[in-house]
């Protein structure tokens, strides 16, 4: 517990120091990471704790953003509130829209709920470009950040601190919410809603409240996004946004409070890093998501938890070799996949096709990772496939070792228990 608090403190200090240490463009990436983290945590209040899988959370993010832009433009550009308090508008809008949408969506549970949230978001997405007064049509609505309290909010650094403050406060509130009676009831919704209703709670009302609170914090995230971009466009309602937050949260792990934030921060950061290098970033993200769903259903945070628990029980020395094997296997698998995808992407790209047609004599070599590969050579395709096969083999080995260590431990304990029982039986 103490270690966890120290880690949290260190993380906060690190976040405060970010603008001092990083370049301007990285600060912008950090702002995006913070916003994505808050959005993911708001989302997983509903889906991780409440067990209600929403496929349309971009809607509440979006209305928060639009409400903020309109609030910034209110009174001839003077703003409805001083700039630092504008996220309150996004929060209010998210709450109101969340109450309405939640009332519909929570009438059903399970997969029906998921479909309704999806349809509601698609409804908004289909409607938004037609309502020019609210959503500004295809062009969207733009605005300017106004100075307030002696701060100009002109630089990235100031926006960063504003975002950081709001995100930390919101995450704190979200955490405190889990400690309230309603927060405990949220878990009850996930575990056994029927039992809650037997206990006399109005399940529909509780669900709507949880939905609205989740939408409210999503609205704050959207609002911060609008403050950062100084604009909002109806594309924000696209399914892509809803998919993004869902993928981020589950990759991070929704069973741990800060898991979704971790996932969102990591994914946004990687997205920022590789989006210039590859066209297939979304494919990697999808692959990662499916791998997580298949093999580590509790996400990265859950994985870290169970690994640390195993290490604590077994000692680092015994687990280290198989952990090293796991890492080696992941590296091999990742290298093989990335190479294969990048090769295919370049091979099937339109540029390459026209280049090959112009060239006239066969396929020119493809540049991947600084060297050129002939697409007709066997080696080009055999190398990644061999890497994948080797990766799978190492993975099997690592898995076998890991489970045998855990099983041995259990076996030893049952033997010991039997011995002691026998000793007691025959004095």
């Amino acid at each position, binding site marked *: 517990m103490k270690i966890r608090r120290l880690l949290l403190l260190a993380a906060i200090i690190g976040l405060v120091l970010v603008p001092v240490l990083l370049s301007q463009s990285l600060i912008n990436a950090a702002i995006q990471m913070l916003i994505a983290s808050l959005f993911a945590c708001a989302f997983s209040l509903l889906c991780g704790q409440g067990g209600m899988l929403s496929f349309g959370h971009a809607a509440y993010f979006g209305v928060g953003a639009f409400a903020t832009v309109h609030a910034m433009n209110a009174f001839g550009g003077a703003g409805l509130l001083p700039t630092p308090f504008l996220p309150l508008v996004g929060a209010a809008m998210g709450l109101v829209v969340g109450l309405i949408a939640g009332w519909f969506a929570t009438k059903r549970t399970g997969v029906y709920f998921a479909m309704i949230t999806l349809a509601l978001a698609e409804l908004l997405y289909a409607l938004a470009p037609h309502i020019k007064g609210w959503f500004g049509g295809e062009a969207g609505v733009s605005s300017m950040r106004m100075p307030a309290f002696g701060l100009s909010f002109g630089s990235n650094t100031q926006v960063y601190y504003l975002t950081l403050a709001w995100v930390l406060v919101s995450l704190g509130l979200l955490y405190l919410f889990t400690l309230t009676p309603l927060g405990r009831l949220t878990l009850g919704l996930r575990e056994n809603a029927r039992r809650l209703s037997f206990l006399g709670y109005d399940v529909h009302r509780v669900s709507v409240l949880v939905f609205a609170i989740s939408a409210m914090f999503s609205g704050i995230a959207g609002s911060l996004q609008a403050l950062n971009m100084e604009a909002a466009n109806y594309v924000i309602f696209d399914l892509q946004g809803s998919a993004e937050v*869902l993928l981020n949260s589950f990759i991070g792990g929704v069973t741990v409070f800060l898991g979704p934030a971790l996932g969102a921060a990591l994914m946004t950061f990687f997205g920022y890093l590789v989006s210039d290098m590859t066209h297939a970033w979304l494919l990697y993200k999808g692959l990662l998501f*499916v791998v997580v769903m298949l093999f580590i*259903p509790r996400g990265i945070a859950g994985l870290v938890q169970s690994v640390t628990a195993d290490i604590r029980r077994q000692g680092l020395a015994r687990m280290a070799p198989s952990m090293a094997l796991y890492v080696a296997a992941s590296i091999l698998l990742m290298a093989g996949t990335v190479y294969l995808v990048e090769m295919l992407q370049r091979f099937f790209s339109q540029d390459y096709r026209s280049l090959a047609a112009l060239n006239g004599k066969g396929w020119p070599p493809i540049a991947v990772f600084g060297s050129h590969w002939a697409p007709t050579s066997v080696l080009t395709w055999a190398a990644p496939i061999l890497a994948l096969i080797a990766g799978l083999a190492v993975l099997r080995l690592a898995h076998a070792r890991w489970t045998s260590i855990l099983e041995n431990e259990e076996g030893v304990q049952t033997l010991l228990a039997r011995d002691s029982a026998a000793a007691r039986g025959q004095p």
Partner: protein
Amino acid sequence: MDYFLVSLLNGLIYGLLLFMVSAGLTLIFGMMGVLNFAHASFYMLGAYFAYLLGRYIGFWPAIVCATALVGLVGVVVERYFLRKVHKYGHAHELLLTFGLSFIIAELVKLFFGNYPVDYHVPAMLSFPAFHAGPLAYPAYRLIMGAIALLMFGVIYLLLTRTRVGIIVRSAIYKPAMAEALGHNVPRVFMAVFGVGAALAGLAGAVAGAFYTTNPNMAIELGVLVFVVVVVGGLGSLEGAMLASLLIGLLTAFSVGVDYSLADLFTWLGAGDWARRMGGLFTLKLSGLSATLPYALMLLILLVRPSGLMGEKE
């Protein structure tokens, strides 16, 4: 009158197409409780496979092969992906299929580019069936409708008149009992999943040639198909048929209607007020036609939460 006839036919045929995709979805849902998010991706795969194969083996053989291939993909998805996460519950399965749909869309973009491909109706099939006023009605639309009807007939007879159908229906109704009687229920699930996927693939292969074949076609249709399932009711084939036709007709007729809410208010004597309000009030119904299915769904949820033909919550 011509407008009415053409809209009616368009609506019916679009509805039949929707039904072709949602039939598999609703069967799988009724059977395994899995809402297959990747179902519309099978529709897209069907179109792309048919496009790819059609360049080498001709239009009709390509459609047959594409259908079989998509069915195979469906079997693989069920056997090697869904079955693995079955123990974590339905939400997890939904998430997995969501991830798969994401991957399929991205793979299609990788191989075919992020733009529509040139998949079209072959010249020998693109002739007008009849003339309605100045409009030539394409015969291919009628062929699509016929294929959907044929498929519905075959499925219906298969489910109600054959031994296989009895086993499938019993596996839907009481899987544990069917298993106890010696039927291999997991294999039945796999087969139904494959057939459902193949139906979606067939729909894609046939419709992709008429409409556009692009990487977004899955998600565009997919959401609509979910609406069909909600409106029609859980796992009900007849409900899916009814809802598909309803939504098809609704979209087909609303595209041609130029009235807005303000006109309704004019009739009530408050037109000027409504026009001053702007926003929603002055939107023409034709512009809103894409949103009508969702509105219908919300309405159904309000008045009959179990769907048109659904029996249980």
